[in-house]
Every structure is written in structure tokens, then in C-alpha cells.
């Protein structure tokens, strides 16, 4: 799985103000009490106990800081390693503070508090978290305050961030992929049934108007010179040309159902409980699957576009090349559920003859309905089930009953897709495809390359 990259927005702290802590007054009071008591009882060993306390307080009053500097929080441009996101907290140079108190909080992680030393030349502190999630998310909030000598003076707390980080999905290496029923164009990486330029040999036939002169097969022409009724031997009377199959490219439309992002824990589906950072949601799996397929198709010279069912906006038109891959990956990363899903009355219009790949959990009927409509319209449709492997152990009896109802409805939809000619596959967290699973998350993951090769051959037999 290749590492992704990040796009981040820096966070700045607002100005801070110095203030004494309650310990200053308490230490001064204790010091005075000790000195007075020592003088009254003529006990220098008692009086001298108050001296270091008063010296500390006096030192803090004399050397107390009077200005603050701003810190900056930025996210790293690239992942430290796959699954590890970093951010940099740049502490200011020439800070009057003796130490910095930070509290870093990140979704899905236990927060950490730290007291950091300052340096005259400034300092960069690296913060990092582990996650397999993707998309555009607010991460790395830092509560920040400065401390003076002996921590007797501190600034007020200020929150820096959170920094919005866009984690692009990684890709899984794939090999053979299914193609649409009908290829398009006159050039491309695939052989097509029509005659044209650039493909395998179709036949050797008589020269007709429109044939290119450089296609003339002189060997066959010479061999057949003078043959035929009424022909003079040794005289060229007819020309023969080599005709080849045309090449064409495939148009693939990735249809992402970003209306929901459910995690493996079914008990979190009905509330706002956050999914753990080490567990992928359905949307993370969909992004990974779509990015992997897009990369493979684009590397093969085909054209890929994208439609998002969760947003009423123009789709990404089908195109080829490396820039198209970056465009698609970025659009995948920023796709996320936005409030209540907007019901679509009209089926999105997609290029004719395109292979349509739908990435959805099929927990509701819209994605399945669209897939069936596209299939009836003549498209080859592939339904990728991106529901993660579920954790059903912590369910209450009521939740278990509700889950069973939802699972049965979902299974019925996927079986209906199978009956309607839509090929269904399962994409689990390991990147496996399993075309035999009808919505079940307990099936063993078959190697993706084996399954995809089978799907690719299926088209040829048709």
C-alpha cells in the first residue's frame, strides 16, 4: 500500500498574557511567616527557612517575562510512514518563557500533556498520531501556554488548531480488470472488433477506396498477380491490403456513495460515537477501492471519471493521464457525508458504453436502484460492497434485532443486483475481492488478482 500525502492549513495562536499563579502569594506569605516567627522566637534556623521562598518570589518578580510570542502549528506535507500522520509545533525563537506547557488532543487518541524547554533559536516539536482513516479531517489541536521562572508566572491558555489535514487514500496494486461491454474510440490500449489501425491482424483483403497505401501487402499482391479469370500472368491487376482490428479505450465511471461512513462497530451506527482511528469506515474502504481501480485503469490507458451520489454537483468527466488520477484521488479524499442525504429522483447520467463501478454499503436502496437502472440501460455494472468487517459482540439484544433486520434487507438488495446482472464484489480492509459474497462480511477474502482476472475473462466469453 503506497503512502499518501497531505494538504494542511496552519493554525496560529492568539496573543497571550502573563499572570502570577496563586503559589506566588502563598510562598511570599509562608516566607514572611517563617521570618517573623523566627525573629520573635530568636530562632535563626526558623527564620532562614523563609529566605529561599522570598528569594524565589523576588527573582520571579524581577525577571518576569513581559511579552509573548506566537507559536505555529502545521501538518507535515507527507505521511511519516503509511498510517502515521505528523504535525509540527514551531516554538518561537527568543522567547522569554522558560518552558512551554502543551496539551495535544487528537481524535481517537488519549491526549498528552508535556512541559517543553524553550531555545533561543526556536524549536520544532513533532507530534504524530496513527490512523488508517482518510479524508479531510480536523486533527492536532494544541492547548498552549507559556511558563516563567519556577512556573510562578504563566500565561493564559490558548488553543491552536485543530489543523485540517487531508489524508489521501492509498492504493492496492491490481492487475487484470473487467472492461465495459462496448469500447469506444479508434485508439486505445484494447483490441476491438472493428477494423482499423494499430491492432492485431484482421485479414488480407482486396484494396478498396479508403485503404491506406502503406497497408498494401506486396507479398500477397505479388503471389496473386496474374491469377483470376482474364488476368495476364505477371501483371499486377489487384492490390491486397492487410486489415487490422482497431484499438479502443474503455470509459470507466466510478460512482461513490459518500452519503454514509459507518464503522465496524454496529453499536456506533445510531449515534455520534466516533469510529476508532485504527478501524476503517466504509467510506475509507470505498476511497481505497476507487483509487486503486482508477490507478489501474489510467495506467492501462483508459479514461476514468467519477460521480458522487452524496453531492449534487457535476461529476468528474472521464479523462486519462496522471493528472486525472491526482484529480480523482483528491476528489475522493474530500468526499464526505454532509448532513442528511439528499434524495435523488433522477438517475445520474453517465457516458454511454461506460463501465460503471458503484462503491456503496447498500444499507439503503438508492445505490442499488441506480445500479439496476444502469444495468438495464446496457451498461456493465460492478457493485463493490465496502461495508467493513463488522464487530457484533457488544450489541444489546435490541441492537442485535435491528442489525438483523438491516442485514436481511441489505442481503436482499444485493441478491436482487445479482439477479439483475450486476456483478457484486466485496472489498474488505485487506483489499480483497469476493464475488461470491452476497453482502456478507464473514466471507474469506479471495485474492484480488484472481477474482479480477475471472471478471475480465467473463467479458471475453460474452
Amino acid at each position, binding site marked *: 500500500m503506497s503512502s499518501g500525502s497531505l494538504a494542511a492549513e496552519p493554525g496560529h495562536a492568539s496573543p497571550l498574557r502573563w499572570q502570577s499563579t496563586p503559589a506566588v502569594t502563598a*510562598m511570599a506569605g509562608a516566607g514572611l511567616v517563617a521570618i517573623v516567627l523566627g525573629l520573635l522566637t530568636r530562632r535563626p534556623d526558623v527564620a532562614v527557612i523563609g529566605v529561599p521562598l522570598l528569594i524565589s518570589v523576588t527573582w520571579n518578580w524581577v525577571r518576569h517575562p513581559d511579552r509573548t510570542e506566537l507559536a505555529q502549528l502545521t501538518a507535515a506535507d507527507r505521511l511519516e510512514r503509511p498510517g502515521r500522520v505528523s504535525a509540527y509545533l514551531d516554538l518561537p525563537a527568543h522567547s522569554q518563557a522558560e518552558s512551554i506547557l502543551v496539551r495535544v488532543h487528537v481524535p481517537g487518541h488519549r491526549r498528552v500533556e*508535556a512541559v517543553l524547554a524553550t531555545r533561543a533559536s526556536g524549536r520544532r516539536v*513533532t507530534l504524530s498520531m496513527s490512523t488508517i482513516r482518510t479524508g479531510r479531517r480536523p486533527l492536532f489541536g494544541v492547548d498552549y501556554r507559556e511558563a516563567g521562572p519556577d512556573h510562578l508566572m504563566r500565561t493564559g491558555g490558548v488553543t491552536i488548531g485543530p489543523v485540517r489535514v487531508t489524508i489521501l487514500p492509498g492504493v492496492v496494486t491490481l492487475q487484470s480488470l473487467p472492461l465495459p461491454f462496448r469500447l469506444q474510440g479508434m485508439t486505445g490500449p484494447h483490441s476491438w472488433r472493428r477494423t482499423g489501425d494499430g491492432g492485431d491482424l484482421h485479414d488480407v483483403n482486396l484494396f478498396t477506396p479508403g485503404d491506406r497505401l502503406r497497408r498494401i501487402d506486396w507479398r500477397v499482391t505479388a503471389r496473386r498477380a496474374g491469377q483470376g479469370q482474364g488476368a495476364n500472368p505477371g501483371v499486377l491487376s489487384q492490390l491486397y491490403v492487410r486489415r487490422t482490428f482497431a484499438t479502443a479505450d474503455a470509459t470507466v465511471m466510478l460512482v461513490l456513495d459518500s452519503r454514509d461512513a459507518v464503522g465496524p462497530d454496529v453499536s456506533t451506527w445510531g449515534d455520534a460515537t466516533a469510529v476508532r482511528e485504527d478501524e476503517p469506515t466504509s467510506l475509507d474502504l470505498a476511497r481505497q477501492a476507487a483509487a486503486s481501480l482508477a490507478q489501474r485503469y489510467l495506467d492501462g490507458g483508459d479514461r476514468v471519471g467519477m460521480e458522487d451520489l452524496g453531492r449534487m454537483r457535476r461529476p468528474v468527466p472521464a479523462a486519462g493521464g496522471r493528472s486525472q488520477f491526482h484529480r480523482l484521488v483528491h476528489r475522493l479524499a474530500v468526499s464526505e457525508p454532509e448532513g442528511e442525504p439528499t434524495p435523488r429522483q433522477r438517475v445520474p447520467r453517465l457516458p454511454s458504453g461506460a463501465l460503471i463501478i458503484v462503491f456503496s454499503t447498500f444499507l439503503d436502496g438508492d445505490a442499488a436502484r441506480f445500479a439496476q437502472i444502469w444495468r438495464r440501460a446496457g451498461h456493465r455494472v460492478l457493485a463493490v460492497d465496502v461495508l467493513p468487517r463488522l464487530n457484533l459482540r457488544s450489541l444489546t439484544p435490541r441492537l442485535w434485532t435491528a442489525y438483523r433486520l438491516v442485514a436481511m434487507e441489505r442481503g436482499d438488495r444485493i441478491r436482487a443486483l445479482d439477479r439483475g446482472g450486476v456483478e457484486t464484489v466485496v472489498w474488505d480492509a485487506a483489499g480483497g475481492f469476493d464475488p461470491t459474497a452476497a453482502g456478507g462480511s464473514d466471507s474469506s477474502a479471495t485474492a484480488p488478482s484472481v477474482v479480477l482476472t475471472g471478471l475480465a475473462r467473463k467479458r471475453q466469453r460474452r
Partner: protein
Amino acid sequence: MSRPAVVPGGPSTLRRWIKARIAAVGGRVDRLVRALRLGSAAWQRPLPRVRIDAGVVLPAWVVRLAMLAVGFGCGLLVVPPTFFAGFVVAVAVLTMVVRPGGAGPAGFVTAAVVMLALGSDGEFAATGLLLLAGLHLLTLLGALVAELSWGALIELRSIWPSARRFLIIQAGVQPLALLGAWLSGQAVTIAVLPVLAGFGVTAFAAWLLPQVASSR
């Protein structure tokens, strides 16, 4: 929740009633466990922690333990060796360790000073020097961890300026204490007095000479 029905009868009825009550309590416990997610996989797998690149660090609970040790030691130096006194000292120290902010350490210092003034026989011993350093250290540690959680990480480099300041102040105050005791006529019973004097002079020189060198 409705109470289980009790039909007047013999021991079997009483047994059923007891079982029903136990089941009701068990149901409440089960709902509480699920609500707190105590039995879920999410709780059994603790959340990961954010990593911070902070060099050599010391957990804040170690500093609080140090406060406990220093406070308990200072307390035992000023109270009579009885169980009740030790118990009171332990409670005071634990309270200060749990709530190190604000007036806790300073209040402990004040109480120790009062006990020292009223309780000892006026003889200046090595315990006086230990008390002098220990109480000062206690207030500094309290100010350090006052607003930190038990699991906070303290970079050792960040406390070096405070440590250096503590040593410098003690190097000046300890000889001052001895001088004060000598001038007031107290009996000074410290066998290592010359060693302490030498340490004080050395520490003072270690502070002064770099300042002189840097000013040239």
C-alpha cells in the same frame, strides 16, 4: 421498573422472589456495563496515545512521588515520633500531593515552621539544613506540577533552569543559616560543617566565575 410480584406462599415463593430481585439487580449492572462500554472491545483495547518528540522526559507522577517523599521526610523532622503525629503528617502530605497547586505546599511549610519553632529544643542540627532545602524544594515541585495531570510528561531540560536556581539559592542560604546559628549562640552540632562550607563556596564560585568570564 416494576417490582416482581410476590404471591404469599412457602419457601419456593421466597426463593423465586429472591431470584427475581437478583436478576433485576443483574440487569441493572448489565445495562450499566454496556452504557460504560466496560465489556466492549473498544474498552479492552485502550486508545493509542499521541506521540510527542520531547527528548528525555519525566512523568509528572514521579515528581508527585518525590513531593511525597520530601514532604513526609520534612514532616517527620519536625513532629514527635508518635503514631498520631505520623498519621497527621501523612494525611497532610497526601493532600498536598493530590492538590499541589495554590496554598498547599506553602501551608505545609508554614505548619512545619510553626512546629519547628514550638517543638525543637533550639539546638541547630543537620536536620535544620535538610529542612531548609526540603521545604524550598517542596514549594518548587508543587509549583511545577500544580496544573499538570498525573500522566503529563516533563522534559528534563525544561526543569534545569529551576534546578540550577535552587542550587544557587541553597548554596547561599545554607551558610547563612549556619552563620545565623553561630551568631545567635545556638549550639551547632554538625560534624560535616567544614564540608558544607566548602560545598557552599564551591557552588558560589561555580556560579560567579562563568558570569565574570562572559562579561570580559
